[in-house]
């Protein structure tokens, strides 16, 4: 494998106004890491296929965020652990022993003066009722812990009977319809 030949890219900000703009964006003492991505849109049946657990429940606790290095890079990223109070499991295709609560990890969070914004990672707050498609692999960074499949694509926030997809608003639908659709996909796959 060839090494050492590389592409370095240099941003040269020539305008003083540019620097001024950054000062407006960044808080005085805050270091802000922003991770943006372009996702590959997966159909619901593919997301279900990559899921080991599909669950409906309520976020009851948010743990302090932790930061870590992305393997083979100099990129740091943070994750946050959430505790979900489970209402029902739609799928459990794993060794996981179903309990009343489930802990999952999600990318993004604030550690000290460093804020790690992961734009395509789902967002949660305590009290949210959610439907989550989870896996403990596939997403290499959070491997070994439950995490949402396909970032925002695999997270629905439920409000007034409607399940809102966090990535693709056209995928939002009534909660019972979503549950039925997912159950049909699971049934078809298990045949």
């Amino acid at each position, binding site marked *: 494998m060839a090494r050492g030949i590389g592409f370095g890219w240099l941003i040269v900000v020539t305008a003083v106004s540019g*620097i001024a703009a950054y000062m407006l964006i960044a808080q005085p003492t805050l270091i802000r890491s922003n991770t943006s991505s372009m996702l590959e849109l997966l159909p619901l049946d593919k997301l279900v296929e990559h899921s080991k657990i599909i669950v409906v429940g309520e976020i009851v606790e948010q743990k302090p965020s932790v930061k870590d290095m992305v393997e083979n890079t100099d990129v740091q990223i943070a994750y946050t652990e959430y505790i979900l109070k489970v209402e029902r499991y739609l799928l459990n295709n794993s060794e996981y022993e179903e309990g009343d609560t489930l802990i999952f990890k999600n990318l993004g969070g604030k550690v000290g003066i460093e804020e790690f914004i992961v*734009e395509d990672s789902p967002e949660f707050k305590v009290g949210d009722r959610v439907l989550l498609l989870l896996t403990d692999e596939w997403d290499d960074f959070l491997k070994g812990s439950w995490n949402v499949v396909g970032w925002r694509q695999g997270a629905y926030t439920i409000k007034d009977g409607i399940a809102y997809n966090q990535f693709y608003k056209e995928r939002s639908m009534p909660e019972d319809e979503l549950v039925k659709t997912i159950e049909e996909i699971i049934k078809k796959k298990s045949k």
Partner: protein
Amino acid sequence: MYSITILDTLGIPRSTWVSELDAARQAWNGHSRFTLYEAASNPHTVYAGIPPSRTALAVTTTVCLPGYLQDADTVFNNTVAWATDGRTWPDFRRVAVHEFGHWVRLKDTSTLSGNNYCYQYTVMYDCFPVVAGYRTLFEEDKQWLRSIYGR
């Protein structure tokens, strides 16, 4: 410091990814006082690998300290079947132009709210289905650039 990897693992011939990436860089130049240069050795890198999420075609991470941009890196997913013909998705140059937009702190249109939600006439459009094309800046993008860096 960190190592820089070449993009050969994307499955695109070297001469092609070199010229496509350069075209994506050039797309940002000449519209404002901002110029994106290529340099032989620099802490800001473009590389190929597996991003923090496998569903991501490419991921850009920028680190901002008060007053300046400390670091910008883009990883292109090397498990994706990239296209370079300008008609097929995912279009490498289209995604590269978009990712460089994050280097200058522009946001994905899907993360905007209200009337701007999924505004289409910008290279920062990332709502689906994304089509190929959109390889040059729109007036909106140029205006954003000028509002930050001046004409």
